[in-house]
């Protein structure tokens, strides 16, 4: 079942004419014949959930927009910086018109007149491609004034960041788009009430918005019939690490993770044994191999002790040093902490230092307990979810692979010492 990746490798798909030849931009007639609120209801009924990480129902978010306050903005989150995640880039580079179509429909539903796509700075090439696609869409009358006689006006622009993971967090993204330091804002107010330039704003992920055209064309029921009871539709999963065929795969939500790793991604390299996997991107807790039969959907992964996140499955075979892998993830959060709040700014650095000691062979079992203590002091105590994200890999790797830590302590010290 391919919705987002239908024709994804077709040559020339980035051009408007090829895209239209594949049935692109056909959803407008149907959409514009209905009231904006009706489109919101369709997306609500489809069960589409946000694909950027939190999995919040898209239609519901749209319905939270402050009533009768204009102008409103739509911002597409194309910051894609969560380690393991590379699906948005593929959509952006190979099928830009799908996102444009989704953004036009979403703007119609949310009565938005100006929309931005916020790219991480390193996506210059993808943004250049999009600028060309946008130009074509203007020329065809899909953007600009009175789109196809609907009375709707929409301007769509690309905007590039300049290197900062935290700018993927929606309120930090809005600050960045306003020409400020990319620090998160206090919530509430949520962007739907006070977002860009303090106006009602919808922020959605690239993949979320790219799913909207199909839902409008094919109907909510058809979308809601795909997947599990609460995880509807298809999801792009970026599979990386120790697999034979890493790549982005579009799956029906609920497929078993085993099937994803062993069938789609070809199994573990060198036919090694699976040791651990991170199901939803670096921020989501690591799981041991015995959880590999978990269904790849929001609820099942949560029940197994982790999260679906952005849909980035990182696979590690038995040769991996879990402490070393955790050290690298921990470096990431230390590097990307914006520094606004103390538990995250100090906690991420401290965790990284302790993990470094453990990896270097000068750690003790007391250090492992100290890590857990720091995790405890960061969880739910940081200003934004980056702090919790930093805890995920550390706490889960100790929980599931404590013996790896202890072995390192023993091996290099000739006996466990405690402090």
């Amino acid at each position, binding site marked *: 079942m391919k919705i987002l990746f239908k024709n994804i490798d077709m040559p020339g798909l980035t051009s408007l004419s090829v895209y239209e030849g594949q049935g692109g931009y056909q959803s407008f007639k149907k959409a514009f014949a209905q009231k904006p609120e009706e489109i919101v209801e369709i997306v609500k009924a489809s069960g589409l959930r946000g694909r950027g990480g939190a999995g919040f129902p898209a239609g519901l978010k749209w319905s939270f927009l402050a009533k009768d306050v204009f102008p409103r903005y739509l911002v597409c989150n194309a910051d894609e910086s*969560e*380690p393991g995640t*590379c699906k948005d880039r593929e959509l952006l580079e190979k099928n830009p018109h799908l996102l444009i179509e989704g953004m036009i429909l979403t703007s119609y539903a949310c009565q938005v007149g100006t929309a931005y796509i916020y790219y991480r700075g390193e996506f210059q090439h993808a943004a250049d491609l999009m600028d060309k696609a946008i130009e074509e869409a203007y020329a065809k009358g899909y953007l600009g004034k009175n789109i196809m006689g609907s009375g709707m006006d929409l301007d769509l622009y690309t905007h*590039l960041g*300049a290197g900062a*993971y935290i700018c993927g967090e929606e309120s930090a993204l809005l600050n960045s788009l306003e*020409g400020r330091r990319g620090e998160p804002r206090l919530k509430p107010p949520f962007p739907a009430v006070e977002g860009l330039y303090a106006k009602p704003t919808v922020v959605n992920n690239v993949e979320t918005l790219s799913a909207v055209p199909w839902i409008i064309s094919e109907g909510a029921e058809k979308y809601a019939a795909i997947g599990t009871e609460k995880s509807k539709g298809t999801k792009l999963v970026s599979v990386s*690490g120790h697999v034979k065929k890493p*790549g982005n795969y579009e799956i029906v939500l609920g497929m078993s993770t085993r099937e994803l790793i062993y069938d789609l991604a070809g199994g573990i390299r060198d036919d090694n044994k699976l040791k651990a996997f991170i199901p939803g991107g670096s921020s989501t807790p690591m799981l041991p191999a015995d959880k590999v039969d978990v269904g790849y959907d929001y609820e099942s992964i949560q029940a197994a002790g982790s999260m679906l996140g952005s849909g980035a499955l990182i696979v590690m075979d038995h040769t991996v040093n879990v402490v070393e892998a955790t050290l690298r993830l921990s470096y990431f959060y230390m*590097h990307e902490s914006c520094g606004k709040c103390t538990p995250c700014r100090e906690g991420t650095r401290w965790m990284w230092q302790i993990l470094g000691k453990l990896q270097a062979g000068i750690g003790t079992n007391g250090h492992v307990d100290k890590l857990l203590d720091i995790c405890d002091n960061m969880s739910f105590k940081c200003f934004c979810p980056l702090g919790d994200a930093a805890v995920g890999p550390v706490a889960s790797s100790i929980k599931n692979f404590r013996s790896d830590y202890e072995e390192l302590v023993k091996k290099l010290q000739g006996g466990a010492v405690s402090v």
Partner: protein
Amino acid sequence: MFTFTPEDEKQIEKIVGKYPVKRSALLPLLTLVQRRDGYISPEAMKAIGGKLELSPAYVQSVMSFYTMYHTHPTGKYIILFCHNISCQLNGADDLLAYTSKKLGIDVGGTTKDKKFTLHREECLAACSGGPMMRVNDVFHENLTTAKIDKILDSLA
């Protein structure tokens, strides 16, 4: 002396026109200058601030938040070498060390001929193609030592 060219002025007008509030054009203008000059000098900060009615101190404060801006001249080609988890699992550390040795510079350094600057990068969203590096705007995936040689040796 820092000046904007007539072509820059045209670009700037277009960029500023995208936003209802001028300040939003700050990152794009910094990027414009950096792509032209390779770095952003104090004079450039002042000139950009002048365009957007922002103080040089404000411009610098925002600029310093983002890792992609350089305050000193860099090489013609900026290599961002990913070392994060997916690339690490597939041997990025060794390949980064190889690249560093090949170019004769440490991470963060620029070659004497000002051709290459080498940076270690956090994830660049090419995880299923790791190990990877970005050379200016181009992503190179599934790297090996032979592939790195070929890419870097082919650059003029």
